[in-house]
């Protein structure tokens, strides 16, 4: 009995811990949501449509690209293809979620998957394996899932509050978040060959593509796969020894 109550209490504590860990990241999401809402209003989306889009598509990078393609009636196929190109990095990101959601029933996994985004995934991975890791992930996801549609709605209603995110350094906020979490992971597990392969892969892919909708995903894919390949080769070496 005590074990049971301890178990659910532990999950709740992990959920709260995840939400708190992700709170600083939510500030960046808030700033970008305000910008997105203002741009959506300029593109002709209604308040309800803007909030609904953020709640159901729930992907900042794909939504910004969609505004660039927006016409009436909307080009559904072009929007779907653009989303595929921009969000393909989620394939790799979701591939790492098995350890986090270990032991979960399939239905709960299916319900949790939409909450996998770059930012709260990164916070979850940086936390590292822990008890109730899945609940921790849900906490990180909940904070951002409340923030993004709310901020989009506010941005639509208020107009361009944050006209130029660059002037406030907000464009650097996610870079700083990802960097901090990468350094945290690197400190726990030293694998310089993996880091080098990943950095080189991402750099080269970015240079070759030089922007465009593919730029959001392909460097991440190439870098991530290069790093993973280096890790696989290295593990093969140590097996041989």
């Amino acid at each position, binding site marked *: 009995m005590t074990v049971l109550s301890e178990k659910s209490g532990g999950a709740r504590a992990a959920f709260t811990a995840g939400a708190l860990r992700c709170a600083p990241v939510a500030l960046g999401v808030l700033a970008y949501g305000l910008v997105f809402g203002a741009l959506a209003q300029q593109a002709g989306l209604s308040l309800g449509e803007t909030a*609904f889009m953020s709640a159901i598509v729930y992907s900042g990078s794909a939504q910004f690209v969609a505004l660039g393609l927006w016409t009436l009636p909307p080009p559904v196929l072009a929007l779907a293809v653009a989303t595929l190109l921009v969000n393909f990095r989620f394939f790799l990101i979701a591939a790492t979620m098995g350890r986090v959601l270990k032991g979960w029933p399939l239905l709960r996994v299916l319900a949790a998957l939409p909450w996998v985004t770059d930012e709260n995934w990164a916070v979850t991975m940086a936390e590292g394996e822990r008890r109730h890791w899945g609940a921790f992930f849900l906490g990180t996801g909940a904070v951002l899932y409340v923030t993004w549609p709310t901020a989009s709605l506010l941005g639509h209603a208020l107009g361009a509050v944050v006209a130029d995110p660059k002037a406030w350094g907000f464009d650097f906020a996610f*870079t700083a978040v990802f960097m901090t979490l990468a350094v945290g992971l690197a400190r726990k597990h030293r694998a310089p060959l993996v880091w080098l392969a990943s950095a080189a892969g991402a750099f080269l892919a970015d240079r070759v593509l030089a922007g465009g909708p593919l730029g959001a995903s392909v460097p991440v894919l190439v870098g991530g796969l290069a790093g993973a390949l280096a890790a696989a080769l290295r593990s093969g070496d140590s097996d041989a020894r």
Partner: protein
Amino acid sequence: MRAEVLLAFLAMAAVSYGIRLAGYLVGGRMHEHPRLRAALDQLPAAILIALVVPIVTRGGPAEWLAAAVVAALAWYVDMLLIPLAAGVVAVVVLRGFL
């Protein structure tokens, strides 16, 4: 809500969901092989580095210096908010000077 707008959003949502589901399922399969599992274990760090490198290298001296500030702080301080806030302040100040 306009029906064609709703359809566009649903299409985008379905594509995003499909990508995540496919990744999750493939990741589960990879876990069964030791060598692929080693790759999977290093994937988070590799993805994070790959997210950062294009943005920082595309920036100028202000972004490079701010990135160095973030990396140094992140190494010593185990709290997300401090390197984050320092990085944002640093990049604003440095952009004013450089």
